[in-house]
C-alpha cells in the first residue's frame, strides 16, 4: 500500500522582483516524518514555507495538501523565524499560548479549548511557568512558548523556522528532544528549518537541501560530509 503525502509540491516557482527564489521545485512530505530543511541564508527556506501558507503567490506550480482526518483540512502549525516579544511584553505564557485559537469569535474559551491549552503547556514543559510573564522568560522558554502556541491549535504538521538559532547548546537540545517526543508520541509530522547540521543529523532522519531554487535530499546521517557543510555555510 502506498502512503499519500500530506504535502505535495510540484514545479513550484516563486519569483521576487529581483530574482527567482524557488525554481520548479518538487517536494513531498509524508505523515509522521521528521525532516530538516537546510540551506544557506537567503536560499529561500522561509519563502518555501510562506508559499505553503499562501502568504506568497507562486508564479508557477501547485501546492496540494491532503487531510489526515476526514473531518477537516490539514492543519499546519508554523513557528515563525522572527518574533518581536520585548522585555516589557505584559502577557503570561499561558495567555500568550492561548492567543492562537480562532475557531470561534466569542471571547470565552470552550472546555475543549481549555484542555488543548493545558495539553500544549504540558507537552512543552511550561505548566509550572504558565503564569510567568513571557517578557521575562529565558530564550529557551520563549521558544517553547512559541512552539506551544503553534501546538494549541492541534496541528497535523509542525514547521519550525530556525527556532533553535538564538539558543545555547543545552536549550537547543532540550527543544529538539521535545519536538522529537511530539513526533513520536503524537505522530506529528515535523519540518525543522535550520543551519545547524549537528542538530539536523541528531534529530531528523532525512534532510532536504535548498540550493539555487531546487531541493536535493539525503539521509541526515550523511550531513557530516564536508561538501554539504560547505553549501550550507557558504553564503552565511
Amino acid at each position, binding site marked *: 500500500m502506498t502512503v499519500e503525502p500530506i504535502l505535495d509540491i510540484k514545479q513550484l516557482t516563486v519569483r521576487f522582483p529581483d530574482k527567482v527564489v524557488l525554481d520548479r521545485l518538487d517536494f513531498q512530505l509524508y505523515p509522521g516524518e521528521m525532516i530538516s530543511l537546510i540551506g544557506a541564508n537567503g536560499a529561500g527556506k522561509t519563502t518555501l514555507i510562506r508559499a505553503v501558507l499562501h502568504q506568497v503567490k507562486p508564479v508557477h506550480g501547485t501546492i496540494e495538501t491532503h487531510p489526515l482526518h476526514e473531518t477537516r483540512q490539514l492543519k499546519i502549525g508554523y513557528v515563525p523565524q522572527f518574533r518581536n516579544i520585548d522585555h516589557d511584553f505584559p502577557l503570561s505564557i*499561558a495567555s500568550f499560548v492561548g*492567543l492562537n*485559537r*480562532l475557531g470561534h469569535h*466569542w*471571547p470565552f474559551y470552550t472546555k475543549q479549548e481549555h484542555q488543548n491549552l493545558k495539553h500544549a503547556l504540558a507537552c512543552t514543559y511550561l505548566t509550572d511557568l504558565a503564569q510567568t*510573564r513571557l517578557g521575562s522568560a529565558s530564550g529557551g522558554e520563549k521558544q517553547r512558548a512559541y512552539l506551544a502556541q503553534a501546538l494549541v491549535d492541534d496541528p497535523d504538521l509542525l514547521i519550525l523556522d530556525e527556532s533553535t538559532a538564538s539558543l545555547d547548546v543545552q536549550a537547543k537540545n532540550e527543544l529538539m528532544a521535545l519536538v522529537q517526543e511530539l513526533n513520536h508520541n503524537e505522530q506529528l509530522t515535523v519540518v525543522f528549518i535550520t543551519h545547524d547540521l549537528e542538530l539536523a543529523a541528531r534529530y531528523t532522519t532525512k534532510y532536504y537541501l535548498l540550493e539555487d531554487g531546487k531541493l536535493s535530499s539525503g539521509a541526515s546521517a550523511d550531513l557530516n560530509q564536508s561538501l554539504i557543510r560547505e553549501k550550507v555555510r557558504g553564503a552565511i
Partner: protein
Amino acid sequence: MFALVFMRNAYLASTFIALTCGVIGVFVVARNLSFLSHTLSEIGFAGAAFGVFSGLSALNGMLIFTSLSSLIVGALGVEKSRREATISAVSSLFIGLGILFLSLSSKNASYATNILFGSIVGISFDEVKQLIILSALVMLFVLMMWRSLVFDSFDSVGAASQNIHRDLISIIFLILLAFAVSIGAQIVGSLLVFILLTLPAASAQYLGRTVPQLLMIAIGISLIGVWLGLYLGYVTNWPVTFFIASIEVLIYLLAILYSRLVQRS
C-alpha cells in the same frame, strides 16, 4: 451633587467614556498606536470646530474628521503614517484648520475652550444618549472580532502566520479608535483625550498578565480618573480635565514604581 442634572449627565457620559477608552486603550498600547491617538485628538479638534461652524454638532464633526483620517491611515499603512515628519505636518494642518473654522463660526471663544479642554456643564441628555449608543457600537465591534483582534494586537507575528484578515482588522480598529477619540473628547476635551486612551492601559501593562486583567485594570483606572476628577472639579471649581490628567499620571507613576518594587523583591 447628583441633584444637578448636568452632573448626572456628566457622570453617565464619563462612565461610558471610561469604559470605551479603557477597552480601546488596551489595544492602542498593544498595537503601539499611542502616536496615532494623539494625532487623532488634534484632528478631532478641527472636526469639532468644523461641526460647530457648519451647524452639525461638535461630536458629529469630530466623528467625520477622525473616521476619515483613520481610513486614510489605514489605506496608507500604519507604518508609513508613523513617520514623524508626516505626523507633525498633518497635525499642524488640522490644528490650523480647527482655528480657522472656529474663527469663521459665530461662536465665542469659550466654545473653543470647551472643545479643546472639555466641559461638563454643556452635555445634554440627548448627547449622553448618543455617547452611549456610540460606546455600545464600539464594544459590539470589539466583541465581534475579539479573538482575531487580541491575537493580532498582542502577537502580530504569530497572527500573520495564521489566516487572519489582518488588514481588515487594522482598518476596523482604526475606525473604532476614531470613535473612541470622539467619544472621549466630550468630557476631557480633544487636547487631552489621548490621556484616557493611553495612560490607563499603559499602567495596566505593569499590573496585569492576561487580556481580561488588562481590560479590567484599564477600565478601573479610567473610571477612577473620570469619577474622582468630576467630583474634585465640582468641589473646587477647577477644571475637571486638570484633575483627570493628574490622577491618570499619578496612577501611571505608581504602577511603574510598583512593578519596579515587585521585580526587585
